[in-house]
């Protein structure tokens, strides 16, 4: 028995050897004594085999506090954030997360578990990840989806190193679109540095990529061409099939950045020649989380043995029942070490669980309906803003998804700052252009936003 279960928490604290000890170690002082006796030690200090010259005798100078105090302190600190309605996107999106996602994903059997190295006792999580993989297979049209990368940027980096590994002939360049977020490009460049690949830009024409532009940029030295749909600007690419054929002509990998909501509406990437789909799948499952995401990674079956990250597969148990397990682990770092397909270990499994629950709770009709909303809202909102003197929107006469740009007859930074004071956050893109993201989460504030823009412009 551990201590005396009749003791109140206060009594237990008083009985502790060190009342300032961690509240998350259950030991009473008596138990510590008993345990020390069992190992023939007088003191816990004896157990540390650390030379005197490097022993730390100082203090971290960090005060602990009760749960109540710490929670209040953090609540107060976070309240320093301005309470703004965000019309922000540019590659980071969120939608209303159904309540069931929190309630289920926070069940402690899920959130306090480790990677499923013992599949017999972790069937639940494995099945949920298998279902996540399956939903992405349906949405991308590709045969393989892994259980996650960290975010869209690192998934892009992994796609490029995959391209370098699987390509039959050598090559040294990766093509990326002009509209690619600089942060993603920066991550990509770090990932390909070790593989001696360089990153080159394909210019956009009125916001989208033309087959001509790709044809001018590509040759047999290119291992991968990457595009996004929707783009960072919120436009849908219009020539993916022709571009896919061009990329294929040069035996390069065609990689597309997208997300599960857009993919619910768009033609399946596999059917237009895409080999790998990456992106941020946490557009379902997470609220805006300061850019924390979920790296979507799906690819053609021919890359199976070279895929980075974890894969859940179906097998059978000794009773002949279908059961799930992590599989093809010989690709991974803990077995293959320096010849692994990636160094990734811990990934974003719990976010993938949340994404799966969110997608399942929308179902196909809910997904299509949400995607349709993302198609309508930007163009409808742009039309409203276009009626304001000094605002022209949308800037491009193309197909929008979630986002659009507006030109303002004023300094864009000043417009953004003034709207910020009114409690709205939007992007300034250049001196005269702003960008707004409109989805189900801020739709109810469109009227207020339009009024605010009108106020700022007049």
């Amino acid at each position: 028995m551990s201590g005396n279960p009749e003791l109140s928490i206060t009594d237990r604290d008083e009985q502790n050897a060190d009342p300032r000890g961690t509240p998350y170690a259950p030991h009473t002082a008596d138990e510590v004594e008993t345990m020390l006796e069992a190992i023939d030690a007088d003191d816990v200090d004896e157990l540390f085999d650390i030379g005197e010259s490097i022993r730390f005798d100082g203090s971290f100078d960090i005060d602990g506090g009760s749960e109540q105090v710490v929670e209040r302190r953090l609540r107060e600190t976070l309240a320093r954030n301005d309470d703004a309605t965000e019309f922000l996107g540019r590659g980071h999106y969120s939608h209303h997360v159904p309540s069931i996602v929190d309630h289920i994903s926070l069940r402690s059997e899920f959130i306090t578990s480790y990677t499923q190295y013992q599949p017999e006792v972790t069937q639940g999580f494995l099945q949920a990840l298998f279902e996540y993989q399956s939903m992405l297979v349906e949405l991308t049209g590709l045969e393989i989806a892994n259980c996650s990368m960290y975010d869209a940027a690192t998934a892009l980096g992994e796609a490029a190193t995959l391209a370098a590994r699987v390509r039959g002939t050598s090559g040294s360049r990766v093509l990326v679109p002009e509209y690619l977020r600089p942060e993603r490009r920066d991550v990509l460049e770090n990932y390909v540095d070790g593989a001696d690949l360089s990153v080159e830009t394909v210019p956009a024409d009125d916001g989208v990529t033309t087959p001509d532009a790709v044809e001018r940029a590509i040759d047999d030295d290119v291992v991968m061409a990457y595009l996004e749909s929707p783009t960072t600007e919120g436009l849908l690419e219009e020539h993916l099939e022709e571009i896919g054929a061009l990329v294929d002509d040069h035996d390069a990998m065609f990689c597309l950045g997208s997300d599960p909501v857009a993919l619910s509406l768009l033609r399946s990437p596999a059917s237009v020649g895409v080999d790998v789909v990456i992106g941020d799948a946490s557009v379902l499952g997470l609220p805006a989380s300061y850019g924390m995401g979920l790296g979507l990674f799906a690819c053609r079956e021919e890359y199976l043995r070279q895929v980075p990250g974890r894969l859940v597969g179906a097998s059978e148990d000794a009773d002949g029942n279908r059961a799930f397990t992590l599989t093809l682990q010989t690709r991974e770092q803990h077995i293959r070490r320096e010849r692994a397909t990636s160094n990734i270990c811990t990934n974003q499994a719990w976010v993938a669980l949340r994404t799966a629950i969110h997608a399942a709770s929308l179902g196909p009709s809910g997904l299509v309906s949400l995607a349709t909303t993302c198609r309508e809202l930007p163009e409808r909102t742009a039309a409203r803003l276009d009626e304001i003197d000094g605002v022209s929107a949308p800037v491009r006469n193309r197909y929008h998804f979630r986002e659009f740009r507006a030109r303002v007859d004023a300094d864009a930074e000043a417009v953004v700052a003034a709207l910020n004071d009114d409690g709205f956050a939007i992007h300034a893109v250049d001196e005269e252009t702003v960008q707004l993201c409109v989805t189900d989460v801020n739709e109810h504030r469109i009227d207020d936003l339009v009024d605010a823009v009108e106020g700022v412009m007049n």
Partner: protein
Amino acid sequence: MQRYTQTVWNDGESDGYEPLLSERSLETVEVPDAGLPDDLTRDELELPELSEPELARHYTRLSQMNYGIDSGPYPLGSCTMKYNPKFTEDVAALPSASVHPDRDAESVQGTLEIYHGLQDYLGRIGGMDAVTLQPPAGAAGEFTGILIAKAYHEANGEGDQRTEVIVPTSAHGTNFATAALGGYDVVELPETDDGRVDVEGLEAAVGDTTAALMLTNPNTLGLFERNIEEIATIIHDAGGLLYYDGANLNALLGRARPGDMGFDIMHYNVHKTFATPHGGGGPGAGPVGVTEELAEFLPSPQVRETNGEFELFEPERSIGKVHGAMGNWLVLLKAYAYIERLGGDGLRDASAKAVLNANYLASQIDLEVPFEPFHHEFVASAGERDAADFAKRMLDYGVHPPTTKWPENVSEALMTEPTEAESKSSLDQLAAAFNAVTADAASDLEAAPSETSASRIDQTSAARNPRLSWQQLDES
């Protein structure tokens, strides 16, 4: 002896346990054109269409067929599966914590204050001068560290010359893979018979091609590298950098700091040391600390404070970015809450009790532990038994088994790390499970597990005939 039977749901119709979502429902919906040309949209979408009550039951059943720390002991060596305080989830769920990464710094001062605070706390805890929070997991932290080492050597005009990273044989697999991802050749350094770094071997291995040595301390056997200062001198004299893998930092909190041992770069695993939930395989976070000399190479952006205001800045010779935004923010927030809850004294106490627990547990089991003195973890040998079978049988006694068959310098290794969160009675039950398996017949081990939702799963056929989606199940 504790008794345990994991929940099994089986509808008696499908050939598995809980039916797949797709076996409950698969609806094909027609997709409207949404104002787009025909060739841009799909015609239809086929996915499960289920009501909330049905989903709640599906996922609740799945959760009942899953084992977490709240279910019982989880002594996976080097994984530090400690208790995850519940209140940190409430903090992470605050609406004010939920902001877009493109918000102006001035409008998210609260977020940046915490971000800056964690940079600062981790610096003090590790004895490092500057810390980035951007790497989204431990392995990403390693990669960040290797990129920093590379940038440092390039800045010194030695980028082309220093092509090798030295890694001890018993190191985590990620160390090897990370060095390779960074474009380095891996030089493997075998341990001595006493399970520590071979100092003479290291002297022979280092040279003007050495970029870095990656080291875990205490190492994977739980042993403190007593020669760490000498090791640091050898690496530094050769012009290389010393990298600390923070996987085992839970052994040392408040007792010793990597910065004081001579490490130049380190990563922290916040889901290990700072109690953020592992979530069944992430999200984690792998902040990286460096010495003052290397601070200018840190990823961009960093957060700094001037007169109570927080701002983002790009270090002068930054390696750029290792994550698309600011890392796994919600995880970092939970780690910050944990550190504030425990304070310096609580952190020191956590390590003391983690080491006490490992030593006590080892004293109560009937297996040989060849290497001592260990700290927060020990590696027992299953002896004549197969360690993987041993682990499967442990599941039947209601505990999660240790990490198996690694490191390789212990035969049939059972790498065991109970953490500070287990009570004496819980350790006694864990020991009873070890000892019961030791006494069980070999046939019991081979037939195990029987008390888990699924019985022994055939790994070979899963890999030989990969079925990775419900679509592929239909094909076979």
